[in-house]
Structures are given as structure tokens and as C-alpha cells.
């Protein structure tokens, strides 16, 4: 293990780790803050900490360390605010073959409702839900990154789904 620890202090190894994880870490910070600039700043600070403490971090837990640090920095620096996220411009519709104006309008309305519903989720629910949906992470991985049990992740996940469904159906 000590050999691997040393690896983290090696610039090439650290760079590899950085490139692999910077996007998902930034996404994570973004789910929390809703501010893309602040999100990257947080992540940079977190990586800086890892580099500075490279010799003391257990290699097998460095990912968890990264996400925990992002979370802590977020709690320390950024005021909680409503997180309203936008859709990517080229979002494909669920039924790509259906191009009828009614369908398209219906889908746009749905997207709008979903956007609002996601903003209404609790921070814990939102981050878990979006890490699964956007980053395609499995529950197990999310649990490891957040330092919680898989059961807790599933609970947050189904809680998020329940709220989203209710809010959308209410419209």
C-alpha cells in the first residue's frame, strides 16, 4: 500500500487520477451548488489538498477523500441556494420517431416540470439521483464516494423518484 501511496505523490500518477475524476467531481459539486464556476473552484481546491497531503492519503480511499473534501469545502464556503439545472441543448426526445408538434410540446412541458421538480429535491436526494442518472454511477459506487451505505443511497434514490413523480403528475 505504501508503494501505491507514493504513486499518488508522483506527478504522472496524480495527473492520471485527476483527468479521470475531475469531471464527475465537478458534476458532484455542481449538483450541490448549482454554480458551474464555483463547482470547478471547489474541485480544484480539493485536488490541491490531495496533492499536498498525497503521502498521507490511503490510495484505496482517495476517491472518497476527493468527494468528501468537495462536500466539506462546499459546506464551508457556499451558501445553500436553489439549484436549477438546464438541459443540454441537443437533448434527444424519448421517442425519436415521433415528430408531431403535440408530442414535442408535451415533452417540452414535461422537461420543464422535471427541471422544477429536481430543484425541489433535497441536496442529499439530488446528488444521489443525478450521480446515478447523469454520471451513470452504480449505487455501490455512490455509497463509497459519499461514505454512506448502499441502503442509504437506495433510500435517497427512491425518495427522489417519489417526489419527482408526484410533482410532475400534479401539473
Amino acid at each position, binding site marked *: 500500500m505504501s508503494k501505491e501511496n507514493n504513486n499518488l505523490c508522483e506527478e504522472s500518477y496524480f495527473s492520471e487520477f485527476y483527468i479521470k475524476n475531475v*469531471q464527475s467531481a*465537478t*458534476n458532484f459539486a455542481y449538483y450541490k451548488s448549482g454554480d458551474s464556476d464555483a463547482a470547478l473552484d471547489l474541485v480544484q481546491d480539493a485536488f490541491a489538498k490531495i*496533492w499536498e497531503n*498525497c503521502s498521507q492519503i490511503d490510495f484505496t480511499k482517495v476517491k472518497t477523500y476527493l468527494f468528501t473534501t468537495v462536500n466539506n469545502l462546499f459546506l464551508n464556503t457556499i451558501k445553500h441556494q436553489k439549484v436549477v439545472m438546464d*438541459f*443540454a441543448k441537443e437533448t*434527444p426526445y424519448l421517442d425519436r420517431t415521433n415528430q408531431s408538434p403535440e408530442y414535442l410540446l408535451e415533452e417540452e412541458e414535461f422537461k420543464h416540470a*422535471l427541471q422544477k421538480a429536481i430543484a425541489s429535491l433535497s441536496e442529499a436526494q439530488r446528488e444521489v439521483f443525478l450521480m446515478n442518472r447523469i454520471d451513470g454511477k452504480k449505487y455501490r459506487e455512490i455509497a463509497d464516494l459519499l461514505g454512506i451505505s448502499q441502503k442509504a443511497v437506495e433510500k435517497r434514490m427512491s425518495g427522489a*423518484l417519489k417526489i419527482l413523480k408526484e410533482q410532475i403528475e400534479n401539473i
Partner: protein
Amino acid sequence: MKKEKEILKWLNGELSSKEIEDLKQSEDFETLEKIAHYSAHLATPKVDAQQALAALKNRKLTKKESKVRTLHFRTIFRVAAVITVLLTSAYFLFYNTNQSFQTGIAQTESFQLPDNSEVLLNASSKITFNEKNWDKKRDLTLEGEAYFQVQKGKTFSVKTADGVVKVLGTHFDVKQRNNYYEVSCYEGLVSVTYNANTVKLPPGKTFRVINKQIEKTDDFDAETPSWLQKESSFTRIPLNQVIAELERQYDIKIEAQDVDTSKLFTGSFTHTNQKIALEAITIPLQLSYKIKGKTVIFYKYEGQ
């Protein structure tokens, strides 16, 4: 939510396509499918990883050294140990130059201190002082008896187990023995501190403590202590102190069990002739003595 377990499994990619088909038959699956689909297309800030990494490296971060560096520390400790030993020995060799002079039974010694003050050391006595610091602090420690002829200058102090004598420049004698402390001033002014009390002694005065009792003393008019002329003088001193002095001046052991040694003695004995000295003490006190090798037994004259 119905089929919650299946839905969670589905979102986690754990369902087979057949199971998904089954799930699709449930009533509200359409909404869930839309939620799952569209939420995956929410935009996140796109990070240019290479550029961000370059920006991070520009921060000029420094790695903190690991706390666990056993091997490295060991060498440091080794070096530290060597340096400590060197410094300590150097200190004792070059700086802590404690000089000491010592005399045995029947010996006297005279020597000069760095400021040319003169010290005469009586028998069985010891003086210690710091040669290096002498210019700053004229301090010395005395066990026994010594006569000082101090050059004028800064405070000169003589520390003994019983008290401290401080002078500026005088001639004086300090005698510190078992249960006996005596300071006599021959010239100038001497200040004696005993048990937090300070007494000033002009020439011809003596300060004497026997068995922790401050004694009244007579004035004297000698210019130097009698022991400089190879004679010990006593004025109303208990016999045991006289015997102790006798044992220091002659290499003998005195036994005086049958004699009242608290009796006071006034007189003197010479350091040059043992027979005369013994007679000088025993005759006035109406005692007699027997010599057995190096032991001298005192006994009552009348008792024989």
C-alpha cells in the same frame, strides 16, 4: 410506489431486458421512464480536464512531507545525539571551567584568584569557583575554613552551606564546619547573610553560629587569623569543635567518651607540635590523654 425494488434495480442497470418488459407493463412506468431519460440529459459544466490540470499545477503547490519517516528521523536523531554530546563536552571543557582547590588533614594552601585576590585555605577545606566568569561574578563556594584578602572591585561572595558572605574588598576569614559557622572581619566591612538575616561586621568583629545558635563574641585585635601563624585560637568554644579542629591539623583520631565535650575552651594550640598541642588543650580543662597509634583518648584527670 409499486415495484420499488424493481425500479431501483432498473435504474441501477441490474434488470434483464425481459424483466424490463415486465416492468413496462406497470401503470405509471411511462412517467418514470421519462424522468429517467430526461434527467440524464441535464447539462453539467463541461470541464476541460487538461486545461484544469494545468491551472492546478500553476498554483505551485507544495507537498507536505509525510509524518512517518522512520529511517530519516533516525539519522536526524543520530546527528542530534552526536551534536549534543559534542556541545556538552565542549561546554564542560571550555566554558564551565570550575576551578577547585582542596586541602587534606594538616595541609594549608594559598592561591590567587583571577583578580589577584588571595585565598589561604586551612586544613580539610575545599573551594570551588568559575574561572571563566570571574570577571562578571566573584562567587565562590567554600567547605571548611579560608582566609580571604580581597582586591577592591565588584561584590565578592563566599557561599557556604550555612550562609553567604558578601564583601567589596576586605580581609576576612570564613570557617564553616559541622554545626559551626564563623566569619571574622580583619579589614573593611563584611556582610554576612545567615537564615535571611544580614549582619554587617566591621574589623575586629566575629559572627559565630554554633549548633544553629548565634553566639555572642568578643572583639579581637589580631591582624590575621591565628591559623596563618600555625596556631588555632579559641574563645569560649565547645570542646568538640576544638577536638574537630585538632583532628584536622594532626592526623589523629580523638576519643573523648568520658569527657563532657560541651565544656567551653578558651586558648590555642599550635599546628607544629602534637604533644604541646594536646597539652595545651587538656591541661586547662583538667584532662589527661593516652596515645594509642593514631588514636588519642581523652579522660578525666581526677578519675585516674
